[in-house]
């Protein structure tokens, strides 16, 4: 759905994007992760048609997005720092967007507003709390009936309850209408519950891009203990990492988790547990040997 190929962008000599390439599939939730200054917001502004790349291309639904009002109709964008017109209420903003976006659904807007009774539609949006402003942005974005939702740090600064609410709305859209979502964050842990794909950015490049399902199925964390002799695990499974605490061995193993489990059971351990891996751990071990300081990036 969204394909970026070798995108470069410089600002007065500073290279903000350095041959960044990525692919967001239709109907998926793509998480764009990276530290501050990695180029996430810059890349997002290219995707939403605000910036034009110096070189490379960004295509949405097969077409160049810059100055393409037909494609932009399909995109709803919520930036990290949301802008509202001075003196404008939520309803005023709704009327403005309804005049711009052909597919704006006023009925959906009314329905969504009903789900947030705390939101005062007549109140100036700028006077609302940050959380309410973000809620308002989501209401408006979803009411545009977009095919693509681009969110730049959408839950940054929100409390857990609000975050849950926002994610619920998003996932509902994805499930019901097959909306493609691109969400950026500097916190990988936050995205692991919602994303199908994750891309990690650093210094203007997308250094790794993976499907979470693939990742989670291909790496396992196992705690295992033996009464007597400890076998050589490497002969049976592909061990990426091995740590020992007393008699308990903690293994990070690459390969299909069922197969790995079966093989290790065959060694007759007294204890064996399959533990959940965080996305962060998956990436660290996935990148093992590629010399990227992913740990530094992700922190």
């Amino acid at each position, binding site marked *: 759905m969204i394909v970026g190929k070798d995108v470069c962008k410089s*600002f007065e000599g500073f290279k903000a994007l350095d041959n960044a390439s990525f692919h967001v599939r239709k109907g998926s939730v793509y998480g764009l992760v990276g530290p501050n200054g990695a180029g996430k917001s810059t890349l997002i*502004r290219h995707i*939403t*048609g*605000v*910036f*034009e790349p110096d070189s490379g291309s960004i295509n949405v639904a097969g077409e160049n997005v810059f*100055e393409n*009002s*037909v*494609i*932009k*109709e399909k*995109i709803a*964008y919520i*930036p990290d*720092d*949301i*802008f509202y*017109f*001075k*003196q*404008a209420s939520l309803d005023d903003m709704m*009327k*403005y967007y*309804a*005049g*711009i*976006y*052909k597919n704006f659904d006023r009925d959906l807007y009314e329905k969504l507003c009903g789900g947030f009774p705390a939101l005062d539609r007549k109140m100036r949006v700028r006077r609302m709390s940050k959380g309410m402003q973000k809620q308002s942005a989501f209401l408006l974005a979803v009411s545009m009936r977009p095919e693509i939702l681009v969110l730049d740090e959408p839950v940054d600064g929100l409390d857990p309850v609000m975050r849950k609410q926002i994610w619920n709305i998003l996932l509902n859209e994805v499930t019901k209408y097959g909306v493609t979502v691109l969400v950026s964050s500097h916190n990988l842990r936050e995205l692991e519950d919602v994303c199908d794909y994750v891309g990690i950015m650093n210094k203007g490049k997308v250094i790794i891009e993976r499907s979470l399902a693939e990742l989670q199925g291909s790496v396992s964390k196992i705690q295992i203990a033996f009464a007597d002799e400890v076998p050589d695990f490497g002969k049976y499974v592909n061990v990426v990492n091995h740590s020992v605490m007393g008699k308990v061995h903690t293994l990070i193993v690459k390969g299909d988790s069922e197969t790995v489990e079966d093989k290790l059971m065959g060694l007759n351990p007294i204890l064996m547990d399959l533990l959940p891996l965080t996305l962060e751990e998956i990436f660290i071990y996935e990148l093992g040997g590629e010399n990227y300081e992913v740990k530094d990036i992700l922190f």
Partner: protein
Amino acid sequence: MKSKISYFNKAVFKKDMTQFWSLWAVEIVISLLIFIMPLMSSVNGIIREYTGNTLNARSDIKESLISFTAVLANPVFIFVMAIVVAVVVFQYTFNSREMYMIHSLPVKRETLFISHYIAGVVMLLIPYVIGFAGYIIVGKMYCAGLTISMLLLAFEVFAMILLFYGIACMVVMVSGNSMMSISIYCVLNVLYIGFYMMFMSVNQMFSYAGRTVDMENILTGRYAWLSPIVFLYRKTGFKWTGVKRWSDSTSLKSEIIRWSEILPFVCAFAAAIIIFIVALLLYKYRKSETVGDMIAFSWGKPVYRTVFAIAGGMFFALISWTIYFQQGVADTMNGEGAYDIERLMDIVMLMMICVIICYFVSEMMLKRTFFIWKSFSKKNFLIVVGGMLMFLVLEVTGVIGIKIPKLNNISELEITSENNILYTDKDDISKFVKLNKEIEEKRLKSDGDSTCGVSFCYRLKNGTKREFSYELPTGQGTISDKIVQCANRSKQKYEAIFSKAYKDGGYKLQNVEVQDCDGNSESTTYASTEEAREKIYEAVLKDIEEGNINILDLSYQGESDDKRLNFRTYVNEKMADKYKMGAYERKSFYVNNKNQFTEKKMLNISFKAKHTRRVIEELTNDGKLKLLDSKEQYYE
């Protein structure tokens, strides 16, 4: 809600009109206060004066309406409001959050620009719609013959609105900062005239000749339109074609619109369209990331840097010098009747220092930081500063600068001192040109207090003018003496006093005044009969022949009993054509109450002019010289 026209978005337009309602609300108040209420007050006052008899009051009401339309059509108000409205409707280009939001919308840039532009035009029109509505109502109620004139006036105002607003929008597209936009807009509107004046001042500095900056020449010159606010203010003001024609209107014939009347405003319209297209293209190709930059286009930065450094440097150097020395640079150079070359290096150094400072200031403004030392380009710096230095060197050495024109290009030469003499004869002109060149080459220094002022004003065939003024030493053998002798020997010496037609049978010496040289106008007498005039005329001719009178008096310091003769000669159009009198000559004629051209010439008479003195004494004794009474009709 969606407009069918693809280049106009109703939502964007409506947003501007609702979001900035306070702006056009203020405009409505201003239009009421400035346009409507004063007019209503005046009209009511007139009607009261005529005790309610509106029929009799019509003429006065018409006069009042005419005078108030000058306020309605004053370009200064439009000039100010245009930039205010442009900065307001395009304010999102100064703010990154808003800019990114707007540019992420599914609206093409052309559509955005045109929608905002139209919103701005509507806002600017509001006060004028109210103003014109009020004036038309008053006109319909009390005056006649109004419609065409008012429509013409409306057309002219609309042209100015589009022109100034177009320039303002163009400037806003070039700069990403509101204050910079306003500054560039103001400077752009006076740039040509301002730069011309500064250039003339600098040129004056380096030339030996004093040269007054001829404002009239600049303001009416061929390229004065490059400073639109100044040009249009002079073009309109109280001479609005729409108003003028109405005030002259006595018949239906005046309702026909003449092309020459509306041409300046048709040109303004055409310019406005071109500027609109330029502004649109600038917006289309402007990068969103330049929001907040002083200059949004990379090609604009060296232009800005160069103009700011050179124009700013020259301006501050001239101002600083004037403030410090309490006089202009040229006056300081020519302070004691002599050209002070030693001071020249002082002003050159001051100018270079100011240019360097202004260069760094421009860099600081562009980069929005004081700390530019690490990143500033030495190459650019050397180009700008080096260029300025080269310019000054060329001025000092005389390679560039305003020079004495070539003989072939000169149409007329006017020498001015106590009196003015106009020369059109090529031989006469070539002699004076030689003397002028000698003055320039020698840069003569005065030894004492005895100096005289003289100026050579060349009118060229291309319609332009060059003037060279000097303070010259006086005395026998000096250059000023040479000029006097040259004037006395010139072929046009009699024309200088009596005009070209003096030999013509139809020539008429209309009036001769005899004045004391102490300027006491109470004792001024005039020759009351034709015979008296002829006698004085013949005596003056004789004295000129014998060299008793100087045609050109450069160092005239009259004795107490010296006289001044003022000749008024009558020359009609036919004679002016016959003697091929140029435009300037004709322009200098005074049109008397009988619509006749009369030319005034002045001549100083010392004791040496024995024949003329004798005749004056005789005529005085005979009572033929009468005291000048302002009530007497001394024009025939």
